Each structure stands twice: as structure tokens, then as C-alpha cells.
């Protein structure tokens, strides 16, 4: 089945945004792939071994978080977690290339580096060729 790819990095991807993405996937009858990116502005100072440990632990945490969201929801969405290390643009593009991605949803724009969020959304649309938007927990 086609997937909604929910992307988080740095300080994004907290509870409310993840719930909204989950419900969006349920409404659109899509599976949910939670793509967490360990990006250079936040994790560049960690060496290889430490970064792998962080990626493993993050995967465990996000799987649990996703289960919590799924259990609280009345909808039933097939979910998975993918943790990748690298630049946000590159990793989102690589992820969409390998799967049947229907839409890319970005967590609430909190922080990570200095880049403008709209500029990033435009860049991702161009590189992936699919719909990219920011999830709004208030919707």
C-alpha cells in the first residue's frame, strides 16, 4: 500500500504533530512511515559508533511513541519507523525513491539550523516530485 511519510528531525515530530499525521494517513487510507533523520546541525559532533547507538535507541523510542499514538486512536494504520543519518533533503529524497510514497508530511517547524521552512518544502517538492506539506495539529 502507498505510504504517508512523516518526517522529523532536530526538535520536530513531537506528540501533537505525530497524532495529526497518523489521522491524516488513516483518512487517506495510507500506511505511515515515520522517517526520523539524524541531521548534521544537531548530531554532526557525534562519531560513527555513538551515532549508530543513538539511531538504535531513537528507533526504539519512536516505535513506542507510534504505538502509543496508535493505541489512543480509533483508526488502524499500518506503521513503521525508519531512522536515517544525513541531510534532511537528501534523506527524504532517498526514502521516497525506494517506496511507494504518496505524500511527505513534515512535523511542526520547531528548529534545527537556520533554514527557512517554506524554502525546504519547495526544495523537497522539486526533488521528490510528490506532495509535501507541513502537518498542522490544529486541523
Amino acid at each position, binding site marked *: 500500500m502507498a505510504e504517508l511519510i512523516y518526517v522529523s*528531525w*532536530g*526538535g*520536530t515530530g*513531537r*506528540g*501533537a504533530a505525530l*497524532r495529526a499525521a497518523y489521522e491524516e494517513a488513516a483518512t487517506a487510507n495510507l500506511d505511515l512511515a515515520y522517517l526520523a533523520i539524524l541531521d*548534521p*546541525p*544537531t*548530531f*554532526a*559532533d*557525534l562519531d560513527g559508533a*555513538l551515532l549508530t*547507538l*543513538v539511531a*538504535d*535507541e*531513537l528507533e*526504539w*523510542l519512536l516505535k*513506542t*511513541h507510534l504505538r*502509543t499514538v496508535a493505541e*489512543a486512536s480509533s483508526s488502524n494504520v499500518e506503521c513503521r519507523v525508519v531512522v536515517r543519518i544525513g541531510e*534532511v533533503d537528501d534523506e527524504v529524497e532517498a526514502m521516497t525513491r525506494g517506496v511507494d510514497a504518496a505524500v511527505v508530511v*513534515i512535523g511542526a*517547524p*520547531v*528548529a*534545527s*539550523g*537556520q*533554514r*527557512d*521552512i517554506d524554502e*525546504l518544502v519547495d526544495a523537497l517538492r522539486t526533488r521528490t516530485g510528490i506532495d509535501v506539506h507541513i502537518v498542522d*495539529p490544529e486541523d
Partner: protein
Amino acid sequence: MHSLAAASTLLAAEAGNFLEQELSIVVLLAVAAAMAIVVQRIKVPYTVALVVVGLAFAFFPNFVDIDFSPDLILGLLIPPLLFEATLHLPWPKLRADLVPVLLFAIGGTMLGTFAVGWIVWSLVDVPWLAAVAFGALISATDPVAVIAFFKSLGVTKRLSVLVEGESLFNDAIAFVAFTLAVSAAAPDESFGVGKAIGDFIIVGGGGLAVGIVLGWFVAQVVLARVDDALIETTTTLAVAYGSFLVAEEFGLIFGIDDLHFSGILAVVASGLIVGTYGLHNTSPTTRLTLEYFWEVLAFLVNSFVFLVIGLRINLREIDIVDNAANVGVAIASVLLIRAIVVYVFGAVHQRLQPSRKIPKAFRHVMYWGGLRGAISLALALLLEESDFSPEVVNTVLVMTFGVVLFTLLVQGTTMSGLIGRLGLSGMAGNERRQQQMQARIHARRAGAAEIGRLGEEGVVFASMAQAMQDTYDDDVAEVQAELSAHFSEHPELEVAMLLQTRRDALVAEQSAIGEMVRTGFISNDVGHDLAVELNNRKAALELIEERWESASAAPPGTV
């Protein structure tokens, strides 16, 4: 016969003196414990309460009689304080913010030493080197009270690492600068900038080298190969004092005249090495024993330093009017230079590391939270053995005490308000409410279980027990619904709870492994490997938490 009687009189006098000292120590311990209980109720920093009580002792001169020489304070009490602080500051966290920490610690201490020294030398009647010594000793910040606030208010861990890291290194650097200024004041010494910098590098570098070598030996040889909580804990105590002594007496040990390294830097280096590499090599049981031991020792030593210093500053003998202007100059200069250090060096750091910039709110807390404490006071007491005149020593001592008292009583008691105003403790209220609800659920389930037991044993009618259990179930369901609504309103709490619960689960896994080793279900080697794996997972979890917090503290609207 007469000499025997004289000897026995002398012994009796010594025994009497020893008993008096012992009694004084017992009194101080009792006071420290009592203050720890009181401050929990009145919500004043522990160190503030200790200083006030220590000062009050001046009005009861016969209440305690304790004779601590300055050398003893420095050699006996300061090494464990620094060692314990480094033990809990793991390298991965410190490394992430090493640039600002070193910038504030090295740049800030050097600027503080000379700029505060220059202002004091210009306005107070003390010689240049005494003013520089004051500038150095007053540059050592004390994070104990501030960190206690951070913990109780739920402030981000990155801020704690910045404050503790800066304090750790500036204590060491301030001590080296202070020692150089005091030794330059000796009659046969001359003071030159080039010589001072050279001495600084030798004394500081030598201290670091001694600490690294001894810390590495303990971490990689003793802690990695011995599996005995008592032996390993004793070894960490030995390396805390041993690194200080070996560095300070390096020349004496190796037969080189007048060669001394910085004992304080040696302790900091050995503590960092043992904390980073050594603790990973210990079993869960040893790690718990080590942590408890150092926590208790730090509590005792902190209490002693503040109480003993309060005792040494005899308020009744100080001419408050004469010294008020000097203390005013000292406080103003310290506040001014601290502002320059935090805000100017903070701006420099922002240019050097834009991706790791320190939010403005953090800088305000670092400025106002630059309290002074045990190290500054202990160094000031060392001046009693210097070549400065008693009047100069007294002036510096009173200025130091004035600054410490001001920072503890004024800055220390207003920190909590500042943290609240800056929005850095925003989650505390919500978290408290979350914890209240979780505790209610847990307590009510325990109550229901007890009633079930009483019902089964026939102590209570089965029908009554069932009715009470059903009522309890309704209560629990009600609080669970409230908790669920609370999480919907504050989604950030869900992540905080996830992290906290994961941390608790990893600790439980660690205890389970320790238990399996203890009962012989698995070998020591297997237990050790699993413990290392768990420690790595805990370190990774801490890093994730810290990065999430840092990213959330950045301005909104950027990604």
C-alpha cells in the same frame, strides 16, 4: 617519674583536644543534616542556609571549636568536591558544548582575573598582586546552588552542562592563576607576563597530565579488571586525593626541587577520565555503590566547607562600616565583568558555532547564576599563609566573603524567579500535575490490591471488599481519563514521560543483570558485557534527550 607524669598529662590534653574536635565535627554534621531538612520546607538553596548558620556560629564562640588549616581545607575538602562533580559530567555531553564551556572558563577566568583585579587595585587599598589574586579566586563559579534549582524546576540539561562544565574548568584555571599571583608576591620572586604564562602552562599542563595518567590507570586497569564494589570505590577515593597529592608534590616525589603542578587540574582530569571510561567498565552493583558513596561524600564535604568558612569569618570582629565600600567595589566589579564574559563571549561563540548557539534566556541564567562559593572562600583562606600583610589578607578575605554572600543571598534567592520569568521552567507545573495524577493511579491501585488481599483472607467480608475494589476502579478510571486529557493538552509531556520511563526501564534492566551476576545465573564476563551495552544505551538516550531539548530551545519558524 616526673617525665612519665608530664607525658601522661600531655597525652590527656591531646586526647581532650581530640575529643573537642570530634565533638565539633559531630555538631557540624548534626547542623548540616538539620539544615538539609529545613531547606526542603523553606525552599532556600542548601548552601545559602549553611552560610547563614555558619555566620551565626560567630555569636556562639564556644559552641564549636574546630581547627582547620587552609591547607587542610584545600587538600582534604576540595578534591572530593571536584572529583564528584566531574564523575557525573560524562564526556559525550560535555564534548558537545566544549567550545562555549572552554571559552567561558578560560577566557572568562583570565578576563575576570585581570579586569576585576585592575578595578579593585584602582579603588581599594591593596597591592597589584593581591588584587590579581582576588580577581582569580573570585572568578571561580560555584554551581551547587544553581544546579539544585535547575533540578527542582525541571530546567533543560544542556543548561546544567554549560553551567557545571564552565564551573569545573574555571575552578581549576582560577586556582592556577591564584597560585601564580600569590607565589609572585614572595620577596624573592619577580612577576612578568611571559613568566606567568610559562608557569601557567607548566603548572596547568603538568596537573592535567598527572590526572590523565592516574585516571586512565584506575579506569582501564583497576575498574576494568577488578569486580568488587568496595575495592573499586576505595580506588576512586584514592585517585581523587592521590592525583591532587602527586601533582602538588611532583618535584618531591621525583627529586626535582620546586616543581609543583596543579593538584586541582589533576583532580578534574582524573575525575573526567574515570567518569567517562571507568564507570563503563564497572558492574551495575559497583556503579550504584560508587554513585551513592560519592553523593554522600559530596554532601558532607559541601556542608563542612560552608559551615567551616562561616566559622572562620568572625562577624563580630569585622568592621562592617570600614569594609562596606570595599565589598561594594568588589561586588560591582564582579557583576560587571561577569556580564562582559557571558554576553561578549556568548556573541563570539555564536559566530564560531552558529548551529550550537546558546539561547538568550540561557545566557541570562548563566549571568545571574554565576554564584561564588566554596572554592573562592577556600582560596581566600589560603592567603593567611601568603606574604601579603595581615591587613591586605583581611581586606581580601572580607571582600571575598561579601561577594560570596551577595551572590548566594541576592542572586541565589532570585534565581528561581528569573528561571520562571524566562519561561525555562514552563513544564514544571504541567509535569507536577502529570506526576500527581500518575501517583494517584498508582496509590489507588495499591489500595485496591490490599482490599483484595483482605477480602481473600476473610478479614473483610468478600462482598464489601468487592464493592470497595469496584469503587477504587471507578476512581482509577476517572484519573486515567484526566491524565489522557492532560496529555492531549500538553503533548510535550508525552515525550518527556516516554524518555523518563525508558530511563527507568534501563535502570531496572541494569539491576536485573546485577542480580543475575550475584546469584551466579550468568558469569561476571557476560554480566560485564551486558552492563557495558546498557550503559551505551543510557548514554544514547541522554544524547537524544539533550538534542531534543536544545532544538526546542531555538527560535521558532526555522527548521
